[in-house]
């Protein structure tokens, strides 16, 4: 394909044809479908330059269903493998698909370090708050007290919050969406794709078998007006049916207010590009049932990527020392020569 030739893809071009083996009704179907459509729409990357890397878990089967390059790896390690791939082949668009167990339990370390390095990867964390593939044990994001096969009396683990971890690692792009809202998910995946640097997207996903309707209290049709906030950059954080309520600063915490009664200057205005992670961190603390839960882009800032700096440093070294010549490195000033006899 020549550079001038435009890329025209349809969603079908990204369907691998492998039989999809998720449970009927699994939220992963919606995520897969939206991803395939998004890649068809964002035409700056040729299909052969997309790579999907995953770990272990239900969502980690994702690469098999994408008609791109894919690597279904081992539990928790996808960010590490993807980091090596991106460093070796910076021109590729590398996606990581992980889950709450894969990304935050066994692979938590890699996720943190990948985000803090700002490797240019698109990381999709599918969060269903349960271990599905191993048939229903609690996960690190399960709510405290949850009764599962491995916690018949309720869990005594405090849950970890994916976006808090991402913000604490100072990820340059952090967002949340939900499997039941394909339009919003498409927008968020598209934003993640366009972001230069680590893009971290948490997708609330419904595990129909082991944790059915876990997010319905927030995202269900009857509840979402009051319990979900769709973030819009530069605008107040408004929620409630007809947009009647808003978020304000309340000391060091956030609070709710009645929009009609509130002074305009007291309203919190969403600023996704705030250089400090403190504001985005506050947003991650908005949890059900204490507060409405935000969806959208929490944070999107620009900073140099690890893979970019790696190449910059190599370029700098070549400018300073010249392109590496092995002979110069072998023949140091400490060499000596033994002459032929006679």
């Amino acid at each position, binding site marked *: 394909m020549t550079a001038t030739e435009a890329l025209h893809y349809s969603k079908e071009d990204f369907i*691998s044809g*492998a039989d999809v083996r998720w449970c009927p009704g699994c939220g992963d179907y919606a995520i897969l479908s939206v991803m395939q459509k998004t890649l068809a729409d964002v035409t700056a990357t*040729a*299909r*052969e*330059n997309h*790579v999907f*890397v995953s770990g*272990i878990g239900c969502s980690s089967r994702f*690469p*098999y269903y*994408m*008609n*791109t*390059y*894919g*690597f*279904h*790896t*081992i539990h928790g*390690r996808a*960010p*590490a*493998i*993807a*980091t*090596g*791939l991106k*460093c*070796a*082949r910076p*021109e*590729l668009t590398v996606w990581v698909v992980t889950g709450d167990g894969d990304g935050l339990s066994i692979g938590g*370390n*890699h996720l943190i*370090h990948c985000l803090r390095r700002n490797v240019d990867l698109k990381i999709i964390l599918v969060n269903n708050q349960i271990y599905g593939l191993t048939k229903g044990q609690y996960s690190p994001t399960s709510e405290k007290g949850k009764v599962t096969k491995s916690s018949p009396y309720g869990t005594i683990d405090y849950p970890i919050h994916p976006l808090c971890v991402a913000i604490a690692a100072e990820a340059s792009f952090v967002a949340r969406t939900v499997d039941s809202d394909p339009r919003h998910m498409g927008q968020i995946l598209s934003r993640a794709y366009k972001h230069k640097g680590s893009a971290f997207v948490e997708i609330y996903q419904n595990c129909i078998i082991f944790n059915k309707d876990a997010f319905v209290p927030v995202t269900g049709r009857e509840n979402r007006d009051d319990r979900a906030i769709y973030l819009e950059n530069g605008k107040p954080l408004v929620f409630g049916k007809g947009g009647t309520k808003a978020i304000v600063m309340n000391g060091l915490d956030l609070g709710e207010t009645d929009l009609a009664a509130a002074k305009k200057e007291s309203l919190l205005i969403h600023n996704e590009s705030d250089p400090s992670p403190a504001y985005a961190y506050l947003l991650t603390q908005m949890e059900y049932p204490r507060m409405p839960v935000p969806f959208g882009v929490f944070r999107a800032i620009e900073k140099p990527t690890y893979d970019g700096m*790696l190449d910059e*440093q*190599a370029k*700098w*070294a*070549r400018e*300073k*020392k*010249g*392109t*590496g010549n*092995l*002979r110069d*490195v*072998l*023949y*140091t000033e*400490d*060499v*000596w*020569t*033994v*002459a*032929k006899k006679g």
Partner: protein
Amino acid sequence: MRKEKEVDAVTIRFAGDSGDGMQLTGDQFTDTSALMGNDIATLPDFPAEIRAPQGTLPGVSSFQIQFSKNDIYTAGDAPDVLVVMNPAALKVNLNDLVKGGLLVLNSDSFSDDNLKKAGWKSNPLADSSLKDYSVLQVPLSSLTRNALTGSKIKYSEVDRCKNFFALGLMFWMYGRSLDHTVQWVNEKFAKKPEVAEANLMALKAGYHYGDITETIPSRYVVKKADISPGTYRKITGNEATALGILAASELTGKTVLYGSYPITPASDILHELSRHKNFKVKTFQAEDEIAACGAALGASFGGQIGVTATSGPGVCLKSEMINLAVMAELPLVILDVQRGGPSTGLPTKTEQADLLQAMFGRNGDSPVAILAPSTPANCFDFIIEAVRLATQYMTPVFFLSDGYLANGAEPWKLPEMDKLPKIKIEHPKTSDGPFLPFVRDEKTLARPWAVPGTPGLEHRIGGIEKADRTGGVSYDPENHHRMTVLRREKIRRIAETIPPAEVFGEKKGKLLVLGWGGTYGTIRAAVDELQKEGKKVSACHLNYLNPFPKNLGAILKSFETILIPEINMGNLLFLVRAEFEGVHAAGYNRVTGQPFKIREIKEVIEKHL
């Protein structure tokens, strides 16, 4: 004019506190001896603690060098000369000094306090502890202080120059030139001229002290060795490994991604490579061992050369990732600079007990190729070989170096880069019909290495068993069996492309000494000496551990007994017994964290004769 005695070879050990600069002193002596045309071999030995309490036994660091007019294979069994900076160094090293050997000691350091810290019940200078040795008491600290009168460095730093005084004295005793060290000091301390000046004052004072003092009866001459013509440099195993990685990048025309997590004794390779960013080598200091291996594997998936380095405990962590490379059939080079184990073990000491770990330490039937360098310099050749096998056979390859090879040094005849064979790598560009990532090359059984970015070859691989040819996920029973057999057969076929094993000495007979990896020098020297004494013993040394060279079975069956000395409890012995029925093999197994001694191996061989 002082008397001069000619000797064939000398072994000197410098020992002191880990802050006394013993490694530096030994290095300088080595460089100069190499430049003066001797054959050399070195053995640094240092504690895991960076700065153990001063004057205590755990803090003792030493550096041994043998220099010779003949070909030598090791740094010498026992020092002829022991230079000690304090009572602790004396305590730790005295037993190794040959009887009648020369002991040079810093008499200023034998205070009651230091003697107590080192656990001497009475002062060895005053009792009979040293009666078997020729003792040269040198007040190193005060002589250095006197020499540095007028130096601009701080009083507290003066004492730190005493290693240069000792070095100068040894230079005098063995007729070495000061030139190389003078130049080195001037370059090293270019930004601190006062420090350079002080060190050189101490060095020269030590040299002149030899000349002036009446207590040294003679100087020694070690003539140039008869070395084959060429250009040489001194090299350690870790340096040679790093340079070999640069060379492998050049020979493949590919970028190397070197993923590593700091671990003794492998870190020096990372340090060296990270200096060469102007080459096509990208270093990645990962968050842990797993990520280091994962990043390397990710690079391999991307069509570049993935290399990861560690020591034993790191291999434990990387095992699952290595297995993914086995299953996905991707190239991966794993450097294991072996150290004493299990667990944290002896981080700074040598051992070769990871062979069975490399061979079997993964779930499932998981064959990999295993290589082991056998000298510091041939780390260069075998890391290139590891890259060749990994890329030609689409497989992980272990490179089992060890602490002794890693830190030991020898002269290295520099290769001519244009004579090293290129490693040809072809990635498929197109496919007639659907691309089949698990259709194999008939000869090597390697699968095609199609890389992301190639239009039309989009495919998925992973750790789940794959269907033969298509690479799709498969739970089919027969397919799993077929793929398992294929993976094994692929590694076996590597034997077609590696050189045959060689026998040193008679090709058949009563006893063959079979070794592998870092014990080469000791075994070779022991067998060499015994053969010269007329003993019927042969030797064979393995650099290829999996698969074995094709002719190994025939070699082993030509001898009544196979003696396998290893610095482990019988790793190779186990493999030989498993692979070659009817071979009578016996082990010699000792794990002290130190290389074998030539004398020790000779004694064991003689027991079997």
